[in-house]
Each structure stands twice: as C-alpha cells, then as structure tokens.
C-alpha cells in the first residue's frame, strides 16, 4: 500500500492505494465518490470520465498514483455552492437521461467541451461524447440538453 494525496474537487484527499489501482477505483472505493461509474474498466464506455487538469479522461485507464499532482474534477465537483451546473439542469429539464448510469460521464465530457467551445455545433457535441455509450439510447435528448446548456451559459456570460 502506498499513501498518496489526490486533489479532487478542490479538496486534498488522502488514500492508501496499490500501485495498479486505477483512479476510478480509488475515487469510488477509497475516497467514496461513487458518482464516477465504471461500466467496462477498459476505456470503452465513457462512464468513468473525469477531468484531469481540465481534460476529460477515462479514469479506469489512469493509475491513481500517476495523478497525484493534478487537479481532478468529478461529477460531484461540477455543481458550485449547491447550485447545479447549467448542464445538470438541462439534463434534468430535457430528459437527457433514462437509467442515469452514463449521465455523470456525459455531463463531465460535455463540460470539457463547453469550457473551450461555448457555441458548438450538433456534430461537435456528438463528437465530444463520441466515446460515451448510452445503452438506453437517449442520444437525441442528451445532445439537446448539451446544446441548450451551451445556450444558457452563453446568455449568462
């Protein structure tokens, strides 16, 4: 076991880990942030997506020991002061989810997109979530929720 510290959602989180444990496993099992879901554990479904230094990554493919000096943001850190991020609100309003399992990964990936592109085309939105699967087949409303969130964010800024 190795003692490490991870900077997650602005908090310094201590964790005792084995070297081969992924960031996803440590977030879920050691730090208790189960909003990051692990559907495949091999980088093929997108549900474990978190932001590492602002970039979306599959946390199942990244070793926890490898991101000790990084700024990690998970779905739990997307809302600020108990106010939902516009993406979270539009996902609710537009029914951009069914079972909800892919939702955290979708929202995190969409946030990464909107942080650098405030006015994406539908194709750009689909490409940003291109590595994310939704077995419930909710794509039409997921895309709509992301487009609407972009509009909300543009009108606020």
């Amino acid at each position, binding site marked *: 076991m190795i003692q490490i510290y991870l900077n997650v959602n602005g908090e310094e989180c201590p964790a005792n880990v*084995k070297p081969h444990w992924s960031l996803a496993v440590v977030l*879920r*099992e050691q730090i*208790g*942030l*189960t*909003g*990051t*879901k*692990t*559907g*495949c*554990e*091999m980088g*093929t*479904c997108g*549900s474990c997506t978190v932001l590492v230094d602002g970039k979306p990554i599959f946390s199942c493919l990244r070793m926890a020991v490898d991101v000790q000096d990084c700024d990690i943001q*998970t*779905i*739990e850190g*997307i*809302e600020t002061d108990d106010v*939902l991020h516009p*993406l*979270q*609100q539009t*996902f*609710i*309003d*537009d*029914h951009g*989810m*069914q*079972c*909800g*399992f*892919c*939702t*955290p990964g979708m*929202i995190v990936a969409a946030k990464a997109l909107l942080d650098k592109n405030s006015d994406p085309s539908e194709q750009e939105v*689909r*490409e940003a*979530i*291109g*590595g*994310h*699967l*939704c*077995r*419930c*087949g*909710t*794509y*039409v*409303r*997921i*895309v709509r929720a992301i487009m609407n969130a972009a509009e909300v964010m543009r009108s606020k800024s």
Partner: protein
Amino acid sequence: MKEKTSIIGKSLPLLDGFEKVTGRLKYAGDVPAMPRMHHAKVLRSPYAHAKVVSIDVSKAEALRGVSAVITHMDDITGRKKTCNSPWHDFSFNFRGPMISQEVCYVGDEVAVVSAVDEDVAKEAISLIEVEYEELPAIFDMEESIKPGAPAVRPWGPNALDPSVFSWGDIEQGFGEADYIIENRVTMGNQQHAPLDRNACIANWEGDKVALWTSTQALFWIRDAVTEFFELSPNNVRVHSTPTGGSFGLWWGNNFMFLAVAIARKAKRPVRLVLTRDEVMTTVKRREKPLIDAKIGFKKDGTMVSQSYRHLMDNGAYGNKFDPYQSVADIYTTKHGRVEFIGVATNLLPAGCMRGVGDLTLAYAMEQTIDMAAEKINMDPVEFRLKNHWQSGDICHTSQEVLFAKLLFNKEPEVELTSSGLAECISKGAEKIGWKDKWKGWGKPSSVDGTKLRGVGMGISTHISGLAFFGFNGITLKVNPDGTMVLTTGIGRMGQGGDTTQAMVAAEVMGVELEDINVVDGDTDVVGHTMVTFGSNGMHMVSRATKAAAEHAKEQLLEFAGRELEANPEDLDIKNRRVYVKGSEEIGIELKDLMSKPIYEYLSAPEVIGSASQGVEFHKAGKMMMADFAEVEIDTRTAQMKVIQFVAYHDSGTVVNPAVCENQVAGGYYQSMGLCTTENLVFDEDTGAILNPNFMDYKIMGPLDMPDPEIYFEEVYDEDGPFGAKGIGEGVTCAVPIAISSAVYNALGVRLDPPMTPAKILEALKSKAK
C-alpha cells in the same frame, strides 16, 4: 372517455433526475461498504460441459485474508441441501443448481471465494485445484432435440414440452388458401449489455438475511431466496437499487444466490461485483430463435391461415417454454397454430430481453408476410392494412390462456381492448413518404452511383403486462404539510416508473408531481408489486396506484367536509387545495387541513390510502406499433446506414411524452444494434464467448445512426388508468423487420440480423452472378 388532466400528458422531469445528474444515485455497486465486509470472486468452468471429479480448495482456504470458499459440496442451508441442489427463478429464466457439479457452459460457476479484498480473492481462486471429466457438449438447437442426443444438463430434458396455441382448423385453413408461403428464420445472439456491472451484497444476522442488488424483480428474488433457504418472508429482506439499465437482465440471477450463500459461510457481509466480461458471459442473453413460419392467403391478399414453430435457445440454465407473448394475433385469421419449444444447449443461459418473443416471432411473421405480399405483388402497407387485428378481436396466443389451462384447466377467451394499428400504419407511411419511395418488391427507391436506397416497414405489438404477474399493493400517505409518500415495488431501470406512477397519484390528488416522494425497493416496506417487466407499469400497476390515491382522496374529502361543513361528494382537490365544486372560493389548503387538530380527537388527521388488487385477465390492452425505414447501401464498401426511421406507436394515453419518446428511441437504438453490430460470437469448438466487451460487441454510439422520428397515436384505452397502455418493451419489436425489409428492397436479397458488411458483400456477389 378521455378526462381532463393537469399532470398526465406533460413531460415533467424525472423525480430522480437530481440524483442522476449529481452522481448521487446509488446503483448496487455504489452501496457503501459495510463494517467487516468481504469481497467475492468466482472460479468459472473453462469447459462447456464437464463433471467436476475432484476439487481441492485447501490452499485457497489457507491463504491469509480468505474468509470462506464454497463449492458444489457445501451445505449452506443446514438442511442437507447443497449448492448442487437446484433452485428456480419464477420467470423461468433460470433453473438449476447455484454451483453445479456438472458444469454446463463456459463460465459456469465452480467455486466462490470471499476475502478481505478482490486481489486476495482472485489469488485464492487461482489456488483452487479442479479435476474435470469432459462431457459431450451441444451448441446447436436442432442437434439438441434430435432423438438420442446427449443430455445438455442433468436436471431437465434437452427440449421442454411444447407450448401450443391453436384455433380454427389449421389444415382446413391451408386448404382454403390460394397460396402458401413457408419460411425459416433465425438471427444472432443479442445481449442486454447494460453499462452498469451489477453487484450483490448479502448479510446474515442469525437466520435473517438482507441483500442489496440492482433489480427489476424485487419480490421474485425475495421469494426465491425464501424458498431455497427455507425461510419465512419475514427473514428475507431485499433492498433493490435502480439498475444501470436492465432490459430484462437483472431479475433473479444466480450470482445473487452465490453472494447469499458465501455470506452465510463467511459469517460477514460479502459483496460480489461482476466484471464486464462476467456481465456478458455468465448472466443471460436474448433467446436465439429458430422459427418455421407458414402463411396461407387468398389471391386478393386476405390471410386465412398461419402457423409458426418457434424454437428458443435457452442455453444451459434457461427454462422457458413460452415467451409470454401474443404477436401472432396481430393478423386476424380464422385458423392458426403457434408452437413454442424451449431447447437447452451448452451455451450461456438465455432468457427474456426487451421485447421477448414478440421481437423474434414478429420478425419471422413479418418477413413471411412480406414474401406473401410479394407473391401477389401487393404493397406491404396495403397488405397489412387488410389483415391486421382490431379492438375486440380475440387474443388466441395470450400466455394468460396458457396459465388458465395450467392452473385451473380452463380455456377462457381474452379480448383485445384497443388498437390504433390502422392509424399507425397509414400515418407512418405518410411520414416517411411511402407512396413516393415505394418502387415495388426488391426494387431500390433510388440509385445514386454506388449507393442504393430501399424502404421497408413492419408492425408489431406487445403486452401491457399479464395478470399472473401478481397483485399490486400500493400505499399513499399524506404528510402534515400536504406532501405525500407513495410506496411501490416498481423497479427503476430508466423507464421512469417511479415518476410516472407518482404522476398518476398527483393527478388524482390534485397536487404537483414534486409533492410526491416515492419509496421503493424494500420488501419489508412496500406491498407486493408485479415484477417490473412485460411493460406492466402503466397499464396494470398504476391501477392500484390510482386506487390507492382515490382511497386517500376519499379520506381527505371526508375530513375536509367536516371542516367546510360540506358534503364530501361536493368537494374536489386542485392546486393542493380542497374546494367546493361550483363555489371554488370556499376551500382549504391541504397543508392546513392535514395539520389542523380535529375537535373529537384533539389531533390532526393521518391519511393513508391503500389498494391491493389483482388484474382481471379477460381483457388485454396491448401496445401497437408500425415502424418505417429507409436505408442506404454503398455497393463499394458493403456498408449499410439508416437514412430515415419513422416509429409510430399506440401506447394509449401518453402519460409523460419525454419518457415515452426516450423509450421509443432506446428501443430503436437497441434493435439497430441487433440489426448491425450486436452479436455474441461463440467459439465453434469450445462454446466460449469471444467478444464479451464493448470493443468487440458494439452497441450504438452517438455517431452511429440518425435519431428516429417518433410519433404517438393516442388511442384511449378504456381499461388503462387515464387511458394508458404499456410502452417499454415493444419499442424494439418492429425495428428489425423494417430494416431487413428495407435492405431487401435496396439489394434484392433477404438478410437476417445481424446484417453485417460481410453478409451484404456476400449478397452483392451472389446478385452479380
């Protein structure tokens, strides 16, 4: 008749939407670790069929950190009932031992280890020494049912007794026909492939057991554990969490039993989480069909007779003898016969998946009907409009008829309540521009260089629940502030069942949706509710929800009548306020009524509405759908893509349009997967699944296919609460035929799912010859 509603019919947000978008919603794998909890891993068979001659677990048991090891020899009930004793799932999706001494498919359970963490459990698994004696394995249904074929499994025959439905005189029917078309159809192996990997935590306290797992079958799991371990229902408490998609996968599954068994031996809570590989290779898949269809019809296109023989591959542990459904009735003929036979093979167990029975049989029927229409050169839209069933027709093949026969030796008639099929067919045809695009059988709608386009269509139906799924016991409690608590055992798997049941309650009670808190998923707390499958939620469960709300409302109006000095019959509730009909200014807010002491009791009232009721089966509400597709095939690359897809559905009153649209879109995407890239590939020699992951078993992503166009024909169903019928399962059923038919018209060759580029290339080559 359609009533005026203020909640029903609105796309209100999901009650658990906040939990989902914030990552707070807990699926089984997210349930926090318990003190002293250990983690389990399973040793699985590398052989499709073998006997465990000897098994040595001593090294595994000796490993530091291991708390228990169980094999087929363990007596975990204390009643001389070993893990090798069969149990059964009430759905017929599983029957056999939880750990069989005779392993019957690659991946079958051989031993389970619990240890301080998964790494130690895995190491212990590798220390178990097993000697197997290989037995002959059968992977093919037709081989399996041949006389003298080796037994697939020791606890049942290779072929179950056929379930037969027949009406009229089939021979006379075919005798009257001008033409007869015979056709054989099969398709690939689809898996439910939810994103979530399920988990089960089990914990014994003395002779009481509690388990936590994601499921749509709350009470069936309780009843199966109760039966196998010979416990009272009072000693079995099942906590069901929402599923990260289920589609029929997460019912009573064997891995849950393994967790219960090893937790008992380990004397501590044990958690078993499946890997992606295990989700796809050891739980369940859709039954692979092999269907022989025969249709007799007149020169003018009138169908007179139809017969089907539907073999269903049950795999090693599936036990289904009837796929529940009644799609064969969608064409009304005087004479008919349908036979279902469940067949065992030494492959991954098979069982229900979204649209079970109706998807496979509809595909076979519809393709044969296309061939019939082609024979007389009739437009498929016209052929279907001529023959489809209508409200009041008899459902000859309803499983309720079969159960009435099995349980009571009676043969009742079941009548169809409503059908918007004619509207779905004709309006759907208009939406896709059928008249312009239809150029005749096997003829492309357009050709542009190497790109051929074709159109196709198909219809289907599905149940809105079945009566023998059981009683529904629902309560609605009114809080002092006028908010309410609805208890229900409805499963939550993305269909929004908690939200739409609450909408029914809110509509009756004259309050807002957010006033209702739904408490679900606990067998000690909620009343028995039908296992959430077969699209029963809105048509059947919500009858009890509505009745419970009406019961609560009756009590509320009684108290309000005293307060307002009015006859309760003259009162109603809207906008969270009781008012006098005709004099709306006289009234009282619910929060005031519920918090105000009543003189006689010196206390404020407590209102609990309840209803526990079965569903009478003599009338059946069924959803109807017509799907239309235009596809494009590039003859250079053999790639097929959808250009346009129109889904026209009759699910009665649409209770929540956004929820229903999502359901239809989901059915389309899942069936598009079945049509193109989803197929579990079994190794021909070993029976092992070669593609148990999302890389090699590809489900549709956001860039793969265009979204469908979705329309609803809202035919009010007199038997459904607020006119509603079911929706969740049938949405998959007509997609494969619409696609396959469009491919046929583009290419001139019939292909069955999965319609891969390899098959398309083969078809192009055969056509060029």
